[in-house]
């Protein structure tokens, strides 16, 4: 509980420059419960950070669209696969 409050107060005392770093980090690693709560409280009254988080979510969703587009592309073409196998054999023989 003490750690929760300490983390929350630390985040609430930060500048927006530091908040955006946390918003981004949150996508890669979980924040502590106190940090996450501090950010949630902060965006209630900070329009700039709220918009930044909204943009990050938009970026993530467009990223998923790109992933889907890449997924439906055809895989390794047969001729490329054959040349690749030949290159592997060549590299093996060289060693």
């Amino acid at each position, binding site marked *: 509980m003490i750690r929760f409050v300490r983390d929350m107060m630390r985040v609430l005392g930060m500048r927006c420059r530091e908040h955006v770093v946390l918003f981004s980090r949150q996508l890669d690693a979980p924040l502590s419960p106190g940090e996450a709560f501090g950010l949630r409280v902060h965006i209630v009254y900070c329009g700039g950070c709220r918009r930044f988080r909204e943009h990050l979510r938009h970026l993530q969703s467009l990223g998923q*669209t790109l992933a889907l587009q890449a997924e439906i592309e055809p895989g390794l073409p047969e001729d490329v696969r054959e040349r690749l196998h030949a290159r*592997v054999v060549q590299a093996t023989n060289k060693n």
Partner: protein
Amino acid sequence: MTESDGPSRVIPVAKPALVASRTSDAREIAARRWIAEHGDILWKFALARTRSKEAAEEIVQETVLAAMQGFETFSGGSTERTWLLGIAAHKIADHFRRVRRAKSPRSPAISPDATCVCATCRGMFTEKGMWACVASKWPDNSQSEAETAEQAEALRACIDKLPPGQSEAVWLRDILGIPAAEVCKAMGLTDTNLWSRMHRARVALRSCLENKFGLRKEKGQ
């Protein structure tokens, strides 16, 4: 040697040529398996980044050959697929370094300072670390597939402008959705390296998209 040989028997040392041959065989078998199991994803990754079949083929080939060379270095800390994608990411970054060097200064990367979303401010934040201005709302794309595709294309173009290394990290992490810990292992980065690289990239992408969507909200308007 059989199990009945017992522990006291001296194990004959294999001739170096034989060992080399066995290692080569193992490498070739592994390479064939990588092509069969991961060839498609490596190809799609390389093609999505370079948009050139020739470049993608070269990258996939270099990736498999490099993986054969570093066969023994695969620690198993990440999945085999992530390890290969990490090698491919380095090869793609090298490719773009070569291309940019050849084209420079025609295709500049996004400047790290180009993170301001207003016409009147010089950066995202004031000297006190507060927002210099609030960015505009981006157009909703949830209702139209065409709009979504257009925005995704805009994002792809922005990713292409990121410095090599950053764009590959974005592809692995935010597009292919590979867990951060695996991306770190694949790209040889620490957690904090990756966080800061991803943050810089996302801020630059946001600024780039803000410009592309043409919704710059200038102060005083």
